[in-house]
């Protein structure tokens, strides 16, 4: 009997990987105790001995990439990415959180703060307030730059609670935008003719065409900044600059960004009758459903695999494997 290589056997597909290896390459199988096949097969020569090319060329990547938007509102977005690797998807997630610039209050010049909240805590709270300003219209402010109308937004907060009146809550709508720049004067060594302020605006920001239609301000008007008792007052000026989330989380544009891999639920054998009903009941997110086969028989089918949260209820405590839970390594959803 002549020796035949296992790869030349009649039932092995040529040029492609055999099915069980294809599952290992593209799917993470989630067993009851731990997931297996999690390592990505990136190396271009991984299957060279079998004659299969594992490389992903630029053309094939561009052809296979698909993006589908599920939901898009002003504050949230949910979309699917198909045909991309986990390393790129994670890089996008990390960049969204840490490296997309926004505007946030950085320097706070305190004139008067007699409230119960200390200066630095109040300044920290002001920094976390989200601002309605497009960072593309601004430049970064570095240490030796002077603050001018192209890199700073100036806000003013001047509130006081009169004696005899009830406690006053200072909300974010009291932050007034000063398009003409800072109003506080710096102390000059010589009493010169014109005192300098803390910013050098050459022109007022509301004369600039970008801000003419949309005045700058805070995004939400009802954020509580501080609470004042009778006789207390706050007077301060806040300067907002452009920054990225890596430096301080106040500059992160997203509340958070996350992804998960597309779940696949495979029924290893036909599940009928009472077993089918038990399986459907086990799943807390209704992944399975009952399909009526003729003569009153019931069969379990996978109705909604996308909802699977990997709670593993369907594979826990079962004697023989009925369900296999898998994740696709190149399909990322939310």
């Amino acid at each position, binding site marked *: 009997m002549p020796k035949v290589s296992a790869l030349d056997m009649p039932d092995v597909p040529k040029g492609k990987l055999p099915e069980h290896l294809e599952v290992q390459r593209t799917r993470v199988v989630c067993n009851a105790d731990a997931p297996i096949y999690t390592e990505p097969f990136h190396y271009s020569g991984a299957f060279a001995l079998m004659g299969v090319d594992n490389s*992903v060329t630029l053309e094939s990547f561009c052809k296979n*990439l698909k*993006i589908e*938007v599920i939901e*898009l509102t*002003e504050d949230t977005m949910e979309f699917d990415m198909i045909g991309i690797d986990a390393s790129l998807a994670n890089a996008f997630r990390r960049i969204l959180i*840490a490296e997309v610039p926004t505007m946030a209050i950085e320097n706070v010049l305190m004139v008067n703060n007699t409230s119960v909240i200390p200066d630095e805590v109040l300044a920290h709270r002001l920094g976390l307030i989200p601002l309605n300003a497009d960072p593309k219209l601004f430049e970064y402010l570095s240490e030796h730059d002077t603050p001018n109308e192209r890199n700073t937004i100036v806000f003013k907060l001047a509130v006081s609670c009169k004696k005899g009146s009830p406690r006053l809550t200072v909300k974010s709508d009291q932050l007034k935008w000063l398009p003409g720049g800072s109003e506080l004067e710096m102390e000059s060594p010589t009493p010169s003719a014109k005192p300098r302020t803390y910013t050098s605006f050459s022109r007022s920001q509301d004369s600039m065409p970008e801000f003419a239609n949309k005045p700058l301000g805070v995004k939400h008007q009802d954020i509580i900044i501080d609470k004042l008792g009778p006789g207390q007052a706050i007077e301060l000026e806040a300067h907002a600059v452009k920054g990225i989330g890596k430096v301080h989380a106040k500059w992160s544009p997203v509340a958070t960004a996350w992804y998960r891999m597309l779940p696949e639920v495979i029924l290893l054998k036909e599940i009928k009758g009472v077993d089918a009903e038990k399986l459907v009941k086990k799943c807390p997110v209704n992944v399975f459903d009952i399909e009526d086969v003729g003569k009153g028989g019931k069969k379990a089918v996978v109705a909604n695999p996308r909802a699977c949260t990997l709670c593993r209820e369907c594979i826990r405590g079962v004697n023989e494997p009925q369900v296999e839970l898998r994740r696709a390594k190149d399909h990322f959803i939310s």
Partner: protein
Amino acid sequence: MEHGSLTDLSSSTFSLIDEDHTLANSVRFTLNQDPRVQFCGYSIPHPSDNKVNIRVQTTGDPAKDVLKDALQNLMLMCKHVRTTFDDTVNDFRATEKVEHIDINSDR
């Protein structure tokens, strides 16, 4: 910064400053797709320093050129993802006909 041997240009370690897993993992992925690469990997010597060491060993070509090509590929891949994403979002907005949502249209 490249640490390598003067005689053997096909293997060297590149030390990048101000980078982290974001770039290093993506570059490792694109490097692996190149058939000239025999081995590639990255490590972060200490999480407090912002440094990444990328090791490239090739089948003969200078490691510097292979890394440059991989970075170029990565840039083109990201550009393609961006254009696909923009097109998909524009199509979605056009089909949804949202009038009351105030999003910048130059996004």
